[in-house]
């Protein structure tokens, strides 16, 4: 009854070029949009130049080392958080897990409170314990179908509680020279902790770019139902991601204990918001599927440079919170690839 509509005969035979007419055009129209993904990096450079212009000492090599040193722990924590956020979930248990890690380590290595001296074996044990807590986060989240927000909020309280319980409220000094050397010894001018953070960056980058887990994290963050249809073991991946996060928070605990030479239950306080902020400032979306460890590196550096800069510029303490707020908004406003995010929550 109806004649079939076909394309004009000229089109038959020649291989059709199906490629996006919409998106491509738009990109070529606005070459700037190609640069959008690098915007957080430009924000970092601009911020550095701004501070450097006002205080030239900012660019001194020693200051770069100091910035790197103050970024080391936040970086390790933020890397753990990055994968969780790319999944579209959140892990609020940073401070609790970090405290458990630091406290366990300080109790297991040579310290001034008991006679333990397990050295690196103790460190490994403690970090494994933190990984186990992360694993529990993931398992409860997936198993009971509770939003990760709540599971990890509860785990935050539990973590700080357990750390308090382990110590009875006191502080333990880490005497072990090996552990302290992470913060005190240097290799190629940078403290070993910085190298550990960089190593972590490298490993997480490889996980993100080169492994199946990394691929699956993005798949789940981009569309969990579709990922499941492609045969991706969604639940297992989620549990693994939370385990990685717990492990890295534990590593953060190690570096904290090494840096301050002590362990106590409040050693992680204030770390949660700074970690999430760094991840988001770097351009990773809280809705998942976007961003990654390189973004996180940039985000952490922005925050570290900001903290360093405020002291270098001598900004009055009561104004610092406000200045920081404005600058964060500016950084995100400049750097977020908002065109890609249809909905901003």
């Amino acid at each position, binding site marked *: 009854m109806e004649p079939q509509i076909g394309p004009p005969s000229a089109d038959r035979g020649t291989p059709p070029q199906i490629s996006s007419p919409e998106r491509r055009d738009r990109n070529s129209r606005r070459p700037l949009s190609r640069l959008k993904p690098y915007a957080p990096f430009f924000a970092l450079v601009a911020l550095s130049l701004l501070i450097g212009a006002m*205080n030239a*000492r*900012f660019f*001194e090599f*020693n*200051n770069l080392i*100091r910035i790197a*040193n*103050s970024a080391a722990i936040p970086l390790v924590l933020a890397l753990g958080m990055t994968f969780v956020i790319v999944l579209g979930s959140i892990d609020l248990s940073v401070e609790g897990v970090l405290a458990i890690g630091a406290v366990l380590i300080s109790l297991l290595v040579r310290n*001034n409170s008991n006679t333990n001296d397990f050295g690196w074996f103790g460190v490994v044990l403690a970090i494994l314990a933190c990984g186990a807590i992360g694993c529990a986060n993931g398992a409860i989240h997936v198993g009971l179908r509770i939003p990760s927000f709540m599971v990890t909020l509860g785990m935050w309280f*539990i973590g*700080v*509680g*357990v*750390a*308090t*319980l382990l*110590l*009875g*409220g*006191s*502080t333990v*000094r880490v005497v072990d020279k090996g552990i302290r050397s992470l*913060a*005190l010894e240097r290799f190629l001018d940078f*403290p070993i902790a910085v190298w550990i953070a960089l190593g972590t960056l490298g490993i997480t980058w490889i996980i993100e770019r080169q492994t199946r887990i990394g691929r699956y994290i993005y798949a789940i963050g981009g569309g969990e139902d579709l990922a499941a249809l492609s045969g991706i073991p969604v639940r297992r991946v989620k549990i693994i991601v939370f385990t990685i996060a717990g492990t890295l928070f534990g590593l953060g605990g190690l570096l*904290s204990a090494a*840096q*301050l*030479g*002590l362990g*106590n*239950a*409040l*050693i992680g*306080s*204030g*770390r949660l918001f700074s970690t999430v902020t760094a991840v988001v400032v770097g351009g990773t979306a809280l809705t998942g599927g976007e961003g990654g460890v390189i973004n996180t590196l940039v985000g952490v550096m922005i925050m570290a440079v900001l*903290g*360093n800069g*405020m*002291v*270098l510029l*001598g900004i009055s*303490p*009561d104004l*610092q919170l406000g200045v920081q707020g404005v600058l964060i908004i500016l950084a995100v406003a400049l750097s977020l690839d908002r065109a890609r995010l249809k909905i901003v929550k």
Partner: protein
Amino acid sequence: MNSPNKDITGIPIHRRTFLRRTAGFAGATAVLSIVPRRAFAAGTPTMVNSIRSLSNPYHATWNQGGQAFAKSIGADYVTLVTEGDSEKGIADIRAILAKTGGNMVLNVDPNDSPDARPIVDACVKAGAYVVTQWNKPADLHPWDFNPNYVAHIAFDGVHYGEDTANALIKAIGGSGGIVALGGILSNTPAIERKAGLEKALNANPNIKLLDFQVANWKSTEAFNIVSAWLTRFGGDIKGIWAANDDMAVGTLEALRAEKLAGKVPITGIDGIKSAIEAVRAGEFAATVSWDPYWQGSMGLSIAYAAKTGKIDPAKEPKEHREFYGTGVLVTKENADEFYKTHIESEPKIDFNDYWGRVTGQIRQS
């Protein structure tokens, strides 16, 4: 269905209790003893310490002092923590008042000065005896609430802030630049200690305060600020004053990472174990110990004395009702001895020496 009503309601509750305890144990590891029902002796009042949290050494020691005193009179002992949340702190105190029916003695370090008023009000209403420490509004006075509001104890932050500053100035030889770290801006101790620092600076015109920053009482924040200072001022920093020991410890570690530990003198305040050790090692120039063990025990002891009639608050002079306690400036000279008497062994305190550490009535500002 035929069983009595009590059983019907009883069974699920027991099951729930069981479930809850199991859950609690799962979270808390099996080591914990969650005592669901503690028998409160009818006659002896309950001893209650309300503090910020058990996660910091200062209050943990405070808690030990409280425990020791309760043990000495054979009373039940309860610790309440605010976790920095004023509302929670007050709610917990109200709860324990309701539970004990007012037959209790409270030694409280209010989370923030405003909290003191509702806490005192609640105690007065319930007939409990209360001693407050550190924080209270300036216009709230124990003598307006006889006999229940027994006393308020504080330490003269200005005085000891000045003391540590002077110790620092002495350690750097009387001239040069220093930097200073303050606590959370609005906290009374932070304000007072800073005022003491300024007093010392005024008396020593050769000392220049290069910068003042706030590290919110935290080691980690202090660490990063000190790192940045080293860039900004470099060798100009001759000494570092910190408003508490935690920040001083962060400062020390930041210096240590730059191989400067022991080369730039640091002072802290509070007298935590790490700080005393650092003074002994020559890395801190000084700290001040408040002796939290004394605070935790004597706060209860004084209130208990009022409750049992050993003292009559109304008859005590004002300098016994609102007084500054005695802090000990710990420097290289007395550090070893202080370590022996206060850190290595449990401090020995005469619980009946109520006013032994009074160093004067609190200034009315």
